Protein backbone atom coordinates (compact mmCIF):
# COMPACT_ATOMS: atom_id res chain seq x y z
CA UNK A 1 0.00 0.00 0.00
CA UNK A 2 1.23 3.48 -0.82
CA UNK A 3 -0.02 6.45 1.19
CA UNK A 4 0.50 10.00 0.01
CA UNK A 5 0.13 12.65 2.70
CA UNK A 6 0.00 16.41 2.10
CA UNK A 7 2.21 16.21 -0.97
CA UNK A 8 3.31 19.44 -2.60
CA UNK A 9 5.64 19.94 -5.55
CA UNK A 10 6.75 23.27 -6.98
CA UNK A 11 9.05 24.21 -9.85
CA UNK A 12 10.30 27.70 -9.03
CA UNK A 13 7.20 29.79 -8.30
CA UNK A 14 4.87 27.34 -10.00
CA UNK A 15 3.07 24.97 -7.66
CA UNK A 16 2.28 21.85 -9.70
CA UNK A 17 0.95 19.58 -6.93
CA UNK A 18 -1.08 21.01 -4.08
CA UNK A 19 -1.80 19.05 -0.90
CA UNK A 20 -2.34 15.62 -2.45
CA UNK A 21 -3.66 13.05 0.03
CA UNK A 22 -4.52 9.59 -1.17
CA UNK A 23 -4.02 5.86 -0.71
CA UNK A 24 -3.06 3.37 -3.43
CA UNK A 25 -4.17 -0.07 -2.35
CA UNK A 26 -2.53 -3.51 -2.72
CA UNK A 27 -3.75 -5.89 -5.42
CA UNK A 28 -5.67 -3.13 -7.16
CA UNK A 29 -5.19 -1.16 -10.34
CA UNK A 30 -5.03 2.43 -9.15
CA UNK A 31 -5.56 4.96 -11.91
CA UNK A 32 -4.43 8.56 -11.93
CA UNK A 33 -6.41 10.53 -14.49
CA UNK A 34 -6.48 14.15 -15.50
CA UNK A 35 -5.97 16.55 -18.37
CA UNK A 36 -2.53 17.09 -19.90
CA UNK A 37 -0.52 19.38 -17.63
CA UNK A 38 -2.68 18.64 -14.58
CA UNK A 39 0.26 17.12 -12.66
CA UNK A 40 -0.27 13.37 -13.17
CA UNK A 41 3.24 12.63 -14.41
CA UNK A 42 4.76 14.91 -11.77
CA UNK A 43 2.85 12.95 -9.11
CA UNK A 44 4.14 9.66 -10.50
CA UNK A 45 7.72 10.95 -10.75
CA UNK A 46 7.47 11.99 -7.09
CA UNK A 47 6.22 8.54 -6.18
CA UNK A 48 9.14 6.79 -7.86
CA UNK A 49 11.72 9.30 -6.67
CA UNK A 50 12.62 10.94 -9.97
CA UNK A 51 11.44 14.22 -8.38
CA UNK A 52 11.83 15.22 -4.74
CA UNK A 53 8.61 16.60 -3.22
CA UNK A 54 8.65 20.16 -1.92
CA UNK A 55 6.64 19.03 1.10
CA UNK A 56 4.75 15.97 2.28
CA UNK A 57 5.16 12.24 2.80
CA UNK A 58 5.07 9.16 0.57
CA UNK A 59 4.71 6.01 2.65
CA UNK A 60 5.47 2.61 1.12
CA UNK A 61 3.89 0.15 3.55
CA UNK A 62 4.60 2.66 6.30
CA UNK A 63 8.16 3.51 5.18
CA UNK A 64 8.58 7.19 4.32
CA UNK A 65 10.27 7.29 0.91
CA UNK A 66 10.94 11.04 1.06
CA UNK A 67 13.12 10.84 4.18
CA UNK A 68 15.06 7.76 3.10
CA UNK A 69 18.82 7.93 2.60
CA UNK A 70 20.21 7.55 -0.91
CA UNK A 71 21.09 3.92 -0.26
CA UNK A 72 17.66 3.16 1.21
CA UNK A 73 16.03 4.73 -1.84
CA UNK A 74 18.13 2.56 -4.15
CA UNK A 75 17.07 -0.54 -2.20
CA UNK A 76 13.44 0.62 -2.23
CA UNK A 77 13.53 1.09 -5.99
CA UNK A 78 14.39 -2.57 -6.41
CA UNK A 79 10.87 -3.28 -5.17
CA UNK A 80 9.46 -1.12 -7.96
CA UNK A 81 8.78 -1.80 -11.61
CA UNK A 82 7.99 0.91 -14.09
CA UNK A 83 6.56 1.01 -17.58
CA UNK A 84 7.28 4.24 -19.38
CA UNK A 85 5.14 5.97 -21.98
CA UNK A 86 7.80 5.23 -24.58
CA UNK A 87 8.45 1.71 -23.18
CA UNK A 88 12.09 2.81 -22.65
CA UNK A 89 13.56 -0.50 -23.75
CA UNK A 90 17.33 -0.65 -24.14
CA UNK A 91 17.69 -0.58 -27.90
CA UNK A 92 21.14 -2.14 -27.93
CA UNK A 93 19.73 -5.31 -26.32
CA UNK A 94 17.42 -7.99 -27.64
CA UNK A 95 13.96 -8.53 -26.17
CA UNK A 96 15.25 -11.41 -24.03
CA UNK A 97 18.27 -9.40 -22.83
CA UNK A 98 15.97 -6.51 -21.90
CA UNK A 99 13.85 -8.77 -19.71
CA UNK A 100 16.94 -10.45 -18.27
CA UNK A 101 18.58 -7.12 -17.44
CA UNK A 102 17.10 -6.60 -13.93
CA UNK A 103 17.85 -10.25 -13.17
CA UNK A 104 21.44 -9.83 -14.37
CA UNK A 105 21.85 -6.80 -12.14
CA UNK A 106 20.15 -7.88 -8.95
CA UNK A 107 19.48 -11.59 -8.77
CA UNK A 108 21.83 -14.33 -7.67
CA UNK A 109 20.34 -16.77 -10.20
CA UNK A 110 22.48 -18.79 -12.56
CA UNK A 111 22.43 -17.91 -16.27
CA UNK A 112 20.09 -20.83 -16.99
CA UNK A 113 17.70 -19.69 -14.26
CA UNK A 114 17.79 -16.10 -15.47
CA UNK A 115 16.97 -17.14 -19.03
CA UNK A 116 14.18 -19.38 -17.74
CA UNK A 117 12.67 -16.58 -15.64
CA UNK A 118 12.92 -14.07 -18.54
CA UNK A 119 11.22 -16.51 -20.90
CA UNK A 120 8.53 -17.16 -18.27
CA UNK A 121 7.84 -13.40 -18.10
CA UNK A 122 7.74 -13.16 -21.90
CA UNK A 123 5.32 -16.08 -22.00
CA UNK A 124 3.16 -14.30 -19.43
CA UNK A 125 2.81 -11.32 -21.79
CA UNK A 126 2.29 -13.63 -24.80
CA UNK A 127 5.61 -12.78 -26.44
CA UNK A 128 7.40 -16.10 -26.44
CA UNK A 129 8.51 -15.92 -30.08
CA UNK A 130 10.26 -12.54 -29.99
CA UNK A 131 13.28 -13.39 -27.81
CA UNK A 132 15.98 -12.54 -30.30
CA UNK A 133 14.37 -9.48 -31.84
CA UNK A 134 15.56 -5.97 -31.07
CA UNK A 135 13.11 -3.32 -29.80
CA UNK A 136 13.31 -1.49 -33.13
CA UNK A 137 12.04 -4.59 -34.93
CA UNK A 138 8.79 -5.01 -32.97
CA UNK A 139 5.54 -3.02 -32.85
CA UNK A 140 4.62 -0.44 -30.21
CA UNK A 141 2.20 -2.83 -28.53
CA UNK A 142 4.85 -5.55 -28.36
CA UNK A 143 7.34 -3.05 -26.94
CA UNK A 144 4.87 -2.22 -24.17
CA UNK A 145 4.47 -5.93 -23.43
CA UNK A 146 8.24 -6.38 -23.27
CA UNK A 147 8.35 -3.41 -20.87
CA UNK A 148 5.72 -5.15 -18.70
CA UNK A 149 7.73 -8.39 -18.78
CA UNK A 150 10.89 -6.49 -17.76
CA UNK A 151 9.00 -4.68 -14.99
CA UNK A 152 7.68 -7.91 -13.43
CA UNK A 153 10.89 -9.94 -13.82
CA UNK A 154 11.95 -9.31 -10.22
CA UNK A 155 8.42 -9.71 -8.77
CA UNK A 156 8.09 -6.06 -7.72
CA UNK A 157 5.70 -5.02 -4.96
CA UNK A 158 4.84 -1.77 -6.71
CA UNK A 159 4.22 -1.30 -10.43
CA UNK A 160 4.05 2.13 -12.04
CA UNK A 161 2.80 2.71 -15.57
CA UNK A 162 3.02 6.08 -17.28
CA UNK A 163 0.37 6.18 -19.99
CA UNK A 164 0.85 2.55 -21.07
CA UNK A 165 -1.74 2.87 -23.85
CA UNK A 166 -0.37 5.99 -25.47
CA UNK A 167 0.15 5.50 -29.20
CA UNK A 168 -1.68 2.17 -29.30
CA UNK A 169 -4.88 1.26 -31.13
CA UNK A 170 -8.00 0.63 -28.98
CA UNK A 171 -7.81 -3.15 -29.31
CA UNK A 172 -4.13 -3.36 -28.32
CA UNK A 173 -4.88 -0.94 -25.46
CA UNK A 174 -7.46 -3.38 -24.14
CA UNK A 175 -4.91 -6.20 -24.30
CA UNK A 176 -2.42 -4.11 -22.30
CA UNK A 177 -5.12 -3.12 -19.78
CA UNK A 178 -6.19 -6.73 -19.27
CA UNK A 179 -2.59 -7.78 -18.88
CA UNK A 180 -1.85 -5.11 -16.27
CA UNK A 181 -5.02 -5.94 -14.39
CA UNK A 182 -4.42 -9.69 -14.31
CA UNK A 183 -0.73 -9.30 -13.40
CA UNK A 184 -1.68 -6.96 -10.55
CA UNK A 185 -4.00 -9.57 -9.07
CA UNK A 186 -1.66 -12.47 -9.77
CA UNK A 187 1.34 -10.85 -8.05
CA UNK A 188 -0.78 -8.88 -5.52
CA UNK A 189 1.07 -5.70 -6.49
CA UNK A 190 0.19 -2.09 -5.88
CA UNK A 191 -0.23 -0.90 -9.46
CA UNK A 192 -0.51 2.77 -10.32
CA UNK A 193 -1.39 3.74 -13.88
CA UNK A 194 -1.28 7.24 -15.31
CA UNK A 195 -3.76 7.38 -18.15
CA UNK A 196 -5.96 9.44 -20.44
CA UNK A 197 -7.66 6.36 -21.81
CA UNK A 198 -11.34 6.23 -20.90
CA UNK A 199 -11.52 2.53 -21.77
CA UNK A 200 -8.96 1.92 -19.00
CA UNK A 201 -10.95 4.08 -16.60
CA UNK A 202 -14.15 2.15 -17.18
CA UNK A 203 -12.50 -1.26 -17.62
CA UNK A 204 -9.84 -1.64 -14.92
CA UNK A 205 -10.26 1.40 -12.67
CA UNK A 206 -10.53 -0.12 -9.19
CA UNK A 207 -9.37 3.07 -7.53
CA UNK A 208 -9.43 6.23 -9.60
CA UNK A 209 -7.83 9.52 -8.62
CA UNK A 210 -8.74 12.56 -10.68
CA UNK A 211 -6.15 15.33 -10.62
CA UNK A 212 -7.25 18.80 -11.66
CA UNK A 213 -4.76 21.67 -11.78
CA UNK A 214 -2.53 19.98 -9.22
CA UNK A 215 -5.32 19.16 -6.75
CA UNK A 216 -6.93 15.82 -6.06
CA UNK A 217 -10.40 16.64 -7.29
CA UNK A 218 -12.12 13.28 -6.97
CA UNK A 219 -11.45 9.69 -5.93
CA UNK A 220 -13.62 6.64 -6.47
CA UNK A 221 -14.14 3.46 -8.51
CA UNK A 222 -15.14 3.07 -12.14
CA UNK A 223 -18.80 2.31 -11.33
CA UNK A 224 -19.06 5.66 -9.53
CA UNK A 225 -17.73 7.68 -12.45
CA UNK A 226 -20.99 7.50 -14.36
CA UNK A 227 -23.09 8.87 -11.56
CA UNK A 228 -20.60 11.42 -10.31
CA UNK A 229 -21.90 14.94 -9.89
CA UNK A 230 -18.42 16.46 -9.96
CA UNK A 231 -18.64 18.85 -12.91
CA UNK A 232 -14.88 18.88 -13.56
CA UNK A 233 -14.73 15.09 -13.64
CA UNK A 234 -17.72 14.64 -15.92
CA UNK A 235 -16.44 17.40 -18.15
CA UNK A 236 -13.12 15.54 -18.46
CA UNK A 237 -14.47 11.99 -18.81
CA UNK A 238 -17.36 12.76 -21.11
CA UNK A 239 -15.53 15.32 -23.21
CA UNK A 240 -16.95 14.24 -26.57
CA UNK A 241 -20.59 14.62 -27.68
CA UNK A 242 -20.76 10.86 -28.24
CA UNK A 243 -19.84 10.08 -24.65
CA UNK A 244 -22.09 12.86 -23.33
CA UNK A 245 -25.06 11.38 -25.19
CA UNK A 246 -24.17 7.86 -24.06
CA UNK A 247 -24.05 9.01 -20.44
CA UNK A 248 -27.41 10.73 -20.84
CA UNK A 249 -29.00 7.55 -22.20
CA UNK A 250 -27.46 5.44 -19.41
CA UNK A 251 -28.56 7.87 -16.69
CA UNK A 252 -32.05 8.42 -18.14
CA UNK A 253 -32.72 4.71 -18.37
CA UNK A 254 -31.11 3.75 -15.09
CA UNK A 255 -28.68 1.43 -16.88
CA UNK A 256 -25.29 0.17 -15.65
CA UNK A 257 -22.09 0.23 -17.70
Amino acid at each position, binding site marked *: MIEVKHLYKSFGDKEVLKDINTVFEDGKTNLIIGRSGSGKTVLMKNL*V*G*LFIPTKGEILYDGRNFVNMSKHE*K*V*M*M*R*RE*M*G*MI*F*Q*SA*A*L*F*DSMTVLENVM*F*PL*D*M*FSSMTLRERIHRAKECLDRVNLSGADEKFPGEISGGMQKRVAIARAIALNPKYL*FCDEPNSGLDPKTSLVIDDLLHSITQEYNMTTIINTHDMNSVMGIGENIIFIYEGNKEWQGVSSEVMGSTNAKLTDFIFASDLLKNMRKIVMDNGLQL
Partner: protein
Amino acid sequence: MLLHKWLTSFGRYIMLMGRVFSRPERMRMFLKQYVTEMTQLGINSIGIVLIISFFIGAVICIQMKLNIQSPWMPRWVAGYTTREILLLEFSSSIMCLILAGKVGSNIASELGTMRVTQQIDALEIMGINSASYLILPKIIGMLTIMPFLVIFSSATGIIGAYGTAYLGHIITPDDLTQGLQHAFIPWFVWMSIIKSQFFAFIISSVPAFCGYTVEGGSVNVGKASTDAVVTSSVLILFSDVFLTQLLS
Protein backbone atom coordinates in the same frame (compact mmCIF):
# COMPACT_ATOMS: atom_id res chain seq x y z
CA MET B 1 27.11 35.42 -17.13
CA LEU B 2 29.31 33.25 -19.36
CA LEU B 3 31.64 32.58 -16.44
CA HIS B 4 28.66 31.62 -14.26
CA LYS B 5 27.42 29.22 -16.96
CA TRP B 6 30.89 27.73 -17.37
CA LEU B 7 31.36 27.28 -13.62
CA THR B 8 27.90 25.71 -13.29
CA SER B 9 28.69 23.24 -16.07
CA PHE B 10 32.07 22.47 -14.53
CA GLY B 11 30.44 21.86 -11.14
CA ARG B 12 27.85 19.55 -12.70
CA TYR B 13 30.64 17.72 -14.57
CA ILE B 14 32.56 17.17 -11.30
CA MET B 15 29.38 15.94 -9.58
CA LEU B 16 28.67 13.57 -12.45
CA MET B 17 32.23 12.22 -12.30
CA GLY B 18 31.69 11.69 -8.57
CA ARG B 19 28.77 9.41 -9.42
CA VAL B 20 30.65 7.75 -12.29
CA PHE B 21 33.64 6.71 -10.18
CA SER B 22 31.75 4.58 -7.72
CA ARG B 23 31.94 0.83 -7.25
CA PRO B 24 29.99 -0.99 -10.00
CA GLU B 25 26.83 -2.72 -8.72
CA ARG B 26 27.65 -5.96 -10.55
CA MET B 27 31.23 -6.60 -11.58
CA ARG B 28 30.09 -9.16 -14.15
CA MET B 29 27.91 -6.58 -15.89
CA PHE B 30 30.65 -3.96 -15.66
CA LEU B 31 33.16 -6.27 -17.35
CA LYS B 32 30.64 -7.10 -20.06
CA GLN B 33 30.04 -3.40 -20.70
CA TYR B 34 33.78 -2.69 -20.53
CA VAL B 35 34.56 -5.21 -23.28
CA THR B 36 31.65 -3.91 -25.39
CA GLU B 37 32.76 -0.28 -25.06
CA MET B 38 36.39 -1.13 -25.76
CA THR B 39 35.27 -2.80 -28.97
CA GLN B 40 32.81 -0.10 -29.97
CA LEU B 41 34.94 2.92 -29.13
CA GLY B 42 38.48 1.60 -29.53
CA ILE B 43 38.73 -1.41 -31.76
CA ASN B 44 36.20 -0.01 -34.23
CA SER B 45 38.39 3.10 -34.47
CA ILE B 46 41.52 1.19 -35.48
CA GLY B 47 40.61 1.33 -39.17
CA ILE B 48 40.32 5.10 -39.35
CA VAL B 49 43.44 5.55 -37.19
CA LEU B 50 45.49 3.33 -39.51
CA ILE B 51 44.26 4.98 -42.72
CA ILE B 52 44.81 8.53 -41.48
CA SER B 53 48.19 7.71 -39.89
CA PHE B 54 49.46 5.99 -43.06
CA PHE B 55 48.70 8.95 -45.30
CA ILE B 56 49.78 11.61 -42.80
CA GLY B 57 53.07 9.72 -42.28
CA ALA B 58 53.59 9.69 -46.05
CA VAL B 59 52.67 13.36 -46.45
CA ILE B 60 54.91 14.50 -43.58
CA CYS B 61 57.83 12.62 -45.13
CA ILE B 62 57.25 14.19 -48.57
CA GLN B 63 56.85 17.69 -47.12
CA MET B 64 59.99 17.35 -45.01
CA LYS B 65 62.02 16.05 -47.93
CA LEU B 66 60.83 18.71 -50.38
CA ASN B 67 60.67 21.74 -48.11
CA ILE B 68 63.11 21.26 -45.25
CA GLN B 69 65.98 19.35 -46.80
CA SER B 70 68.81 21.34 -48.32
CA PRO B 71 72.42 20.56 -49.36
CA TRP B 72 73.52 21.88 -45.97
CA MET B 73 71.58 19.27 -44.07
CA PRO B 74 72.18 15.54 -43.71
CA ARG B 75 70.07 13.34 -46.02
CA TRP B 76 68.41 11.60 -43.08
CA VAL B 77 66.80 14.82 -41.76
CA ALA B 78 63.46 14.09 -43.45
CA GLY B 79 63.22 10.70 -41.71
CA TYR B 80 64.23 12.20 -38.40
CA THR B 81 61.66 15.03 -38.48
CA THR B 82 58.95 12.65 -39.69
CA ARG B 83 59.54 10.40 -36.68
CA GLU B 84 59.59 13.32 -34.23
CA ILE B 85 56.36 14.81 -35.57
CA LEU B 86 54.58 11.47 -35.58
CA LEU B 87 55.73 10.53 -32.12
CA LEU B 88 55.47 13.87 -30.35
CA GLU B 89 52.31 15.35 -31.78
CA PHE B 90 50.48 13.44 -34.46
CA SER B 91 49.99 10.03 -32.86
CA SER B 92 48.89 11.46 -29.54
CA SER B 93 47.33 14.90 -29.96
CA ILE B 94 46.14 15.06 -33.57
CA MET B 95 44.95 11.48 -33.58
CA CYS B 96 42.98 12.19 -30.38
CA LEU B 97 41.46 15.26 -32.02
CA ILE B 98 40.26 12.99 -34.82
CA LEU B 99 38.94 10.49 -32.30
CA ALA B 100 37.18 13.30 -30.41
CA GLY B 101 35.06 13.71 -33.53
CA LYS B 102 34.35 10.05 -34.06
CA VAL B 103 34.11 8.73 -30.50
CA GLY B 104 32.87 11.96 -28.89
CA SER B 105 29.85 12.35 -31.14
CA ASN B 106 29.11 8.63 -30.76
CA ILE B 107 29.09 8.81 -26.95
CA ALA B 108 27.13 12.08 -26.74
CA SER B 109 24.44 10.98 -29.19
CA GLU B 110 24.10 7.52 -27.63
CA LEU B 111 23.67 8.85 -24.08
CA GLY B 112 21.56 11.80 -25.26
CA THR B 113 19.17 9.47 -27.06
CA MET B 114 19.02 7.23 -23.99
CA ARG B 115 18.15 10.27 -21.91
CA VAL B 116 15.35 11.58 -24.15
CA THR B 117 13.84 8.11 -24.64
CA GLN B 118 13.76 7.63 -20.84
CA GLN B 119 16.17 4.68 -20.93
CA ILE B 120 18.33 6.41 -18.29
CA ASP B 121 15.23 7.01 -16.14
CA ALA B 122 14.43 3.30 -16.50
CA LEU B 123 17.88 2.43 -15.11
CA GLU B 124 17.42 4.84 -12.21
CA ILE B 125 14.00 3.40 -11.36
CA MET B 126 15.58 -0.05 -11.23
CA GLY B 127 17.91 1.29 -8.54
CA ILE B 128 20.97 1.34 -10.80
CA ASN B 129 23.56 4.12 -10.70
CA SER B 130 23.05 4.95 -14.37
CA ALA B 131 26.04 7.30 -14.53
CA SER B 132 28.42 4.63 -13.33
CA TYR B 133 26.80 1.83 -15.34
CA LEU B 134 26.87 3.77 -18.63
CA ILE B 135 29.90 6.06 -18.39
CA LEU B 136 32.54 4.23 -16.34
CA PRO B 137 33.04 1.39 -18.89
CA LYS B 138 33.44 3.99 -21.65
CA ILE B 139 36.14 5.89 -19.74
CA ILE B 140 38.03 2.78 -18.63
CA GLY B 141 37.64 1.24 -22.10
CA MET B 142 39.11 4.31 -23.81
CA LEU B 143 41.96 4.56 -21.29
CA THR B 144 42.81 0.90 -21.95
CA ILE B 145 42.71 0.98 -25.72
CA MET B 146 44.32 4.39 -26.27
CA PRO B 147 48.01 3.35 -25.82
CA PHE B 148 47.50 0.67 -28.47
CA LEU B 149 45.97 3.21 -30.85
CA VAL B 150 48.93 5.54 -30.28
CA ILE B 151 51.43 2.76 -30.99
CA PHE B 152 49.50 1.58 -34.07
CA SER B 153 49.29 5.17 -35.30
CA SER B 154 53.04 5.79 -34.95
CA ALA B 155 53.90 2.48 -36.59
CA THR B 156 51.49 3.02 -39.49
CA GLY B 157 52.76 6.58 -39.98
CA ILE B 158 56.26 5.20 -40.34
CA ILE B 159 55.00 2.58 -42.80
CA GLY B 160 53.42 5.46 -44.75
CA ALA B 161 56.79 7.22 -44.80
CA TYR B 162 58.41 4.05 -46.15
CA GLY B 163 55.68 4.01 -48.79
CA THR B 164 57.01 7.29 -50.14
CA ALA B 165 60.49 5.81 -50.18
CA TYR B 166 59.70 2.52 -51.89
CA LEU B 167 56.78 3.58 -54.09
CA GLY B 168 57.29 7.32 -54.60
CA HIS B 169 61.11 7.30 -54.56
CA ILE B 170 61.04 10.62 -52.71
CA ILE B 171 63.73 9.50 -50.31
CA THR B 172 65.95 6.43 -50.25
CA PRO B 173 64.91 3.73 -47.73
CA ASP B 174 68.39 3.84 -46.22
CA ASP B 175 68.26 7.57 -45.58
CA LEU B 176 64.78 7.21 -44.10
CA THR B 177 65.89 4.36 -41.83
CA GLN B 178 68.93 6.32 -40.72
CA GLY B 179 66.73 9.32 -39.93
CA LEU B 180 64.17 7.26 -38.05
CA GLN B 181 66.93 5.77 -35.90
CA HIS B 182 68.86 9.00 -35.34
CA ALA B 183 68.98 10.27 -31.73
CA PHE B 184 65.97 8.26 -30.70
CA ILE B 185 64.73 9.10 -27.21
CA PRO B 186 62.48 6.31 -25.79
CA TRP B 187 60.90 8.79 -23.36
CA PHE B 188 59.07 10.38 -26.31
CA VAL B 189 57.08 7.16 -26.75
CA TRP B 190 56.09 7.26 -23.08
CA MET B 191 55.33 10.95 -23.36
CA SER B 192 53.01 10.23 -26.25
CA ILE B 193 51.24 7.49 -24.31
CA ILE B 194 50.91 9.61 -21.13
CA LYS B 195 49.46 12.51 -23.12
CA SER B 196 47.05 10.18 -24.86
CA GLN B 197 45.76 8.93 -21.49
CA PHE B 198 44.70 12.46 -20.54
CA PHE B 199 43.14 12.94 -23.95
CA ALA B 200 41.33 9.60 -23.69
CA PHE B 201 39.76 10.76 -20.44
CA ILE B 202 38.65 14.01 -22.08
CA ILE B 203 37.32 12.23 -25.18
CA SER B 204 35.18 9.86 -23.12
CA SER B 205 34.10 11.93 -20.10
CA VAL B 206 33.24 15.28 -21.70
CA PRO B 207 30.94 13.87 -24.42
CA ALA B 208 29.42 11.56 -21.78
CA PHE B 209 28.61 14.63 -19.68
CA CYS B 210 27.13 16.44 -22.70
CA GLY B 211 24.98 13.45 -23.64
CA TYR B 212 23.95 12.43 -20.13
CA THR B 213 22.68 15.89 -19.23
CA VAL B 214 20.62 16.48 -22.38
CA GLU B 215 17.16 17.93 -21.80
CA GLY B 216 14.53 18.07 -24.51
CA GLY B 217 14.38 16.20 -27.78
CA SER B 218 16.33 15.23 -30.87
CA VAL B 219 17.45 18.80 -31.62
CA ASN B 220 19.11 18.96 -28.22
CA VAL B 221 20.76 15.57 -28.79
CA GLY B 222 22.28 16.96 -32.00
CA LYS B 223 23.40 20.09 -30.17
CA ALA B 224 24.92 18.02 -27.36
CA SER B 225 26.81 15.98 -29.93
CA THR B 226 28.25 19.13 -31.53
CA ASP B 227 29.06 20.65 -28.14
CA ALA B 228 30.78 17.42 -27.11
CA VAL B 229 33.09 17.45 -30.14
CA VAL B 230 33.88 21.18 -29.90
CA THR B 231 34.47 21.16 -26.14
CA SER B 232 36.60 18.04 -26.08
CA SER B 233 38.67 19.27 -29.06
CA VAL B 234 39.34 22.61 -27.37
CA LEU B 235 40.20 20.86 -24.09
CA ILE B 236 42.59 18.50 -25.89
CA LEU B 237 44.42 21.40 -27.53
CA PHE B 238 44.45 23.38 -24.28
CA SER B 239 45.76 20.51 -22.18
CA ASP B 240 48.27 19.60 -24.91
CA VAL B 241 50.09 22.87 -24.27
CA PHE B 242 50.40 22.17 -20.55
CA LEU B 243 51.23 18.50 -20.92
CA THR B 244 53.92 19.17 -23.54
CA GLN B 245 55.49 21.79 -21.29
CA LEU B 246 55.22 19.51 -18.27
CA LEU B 247 56.56 16.35 -19.87
CA SER B 248 59.30 17.78 -22.13
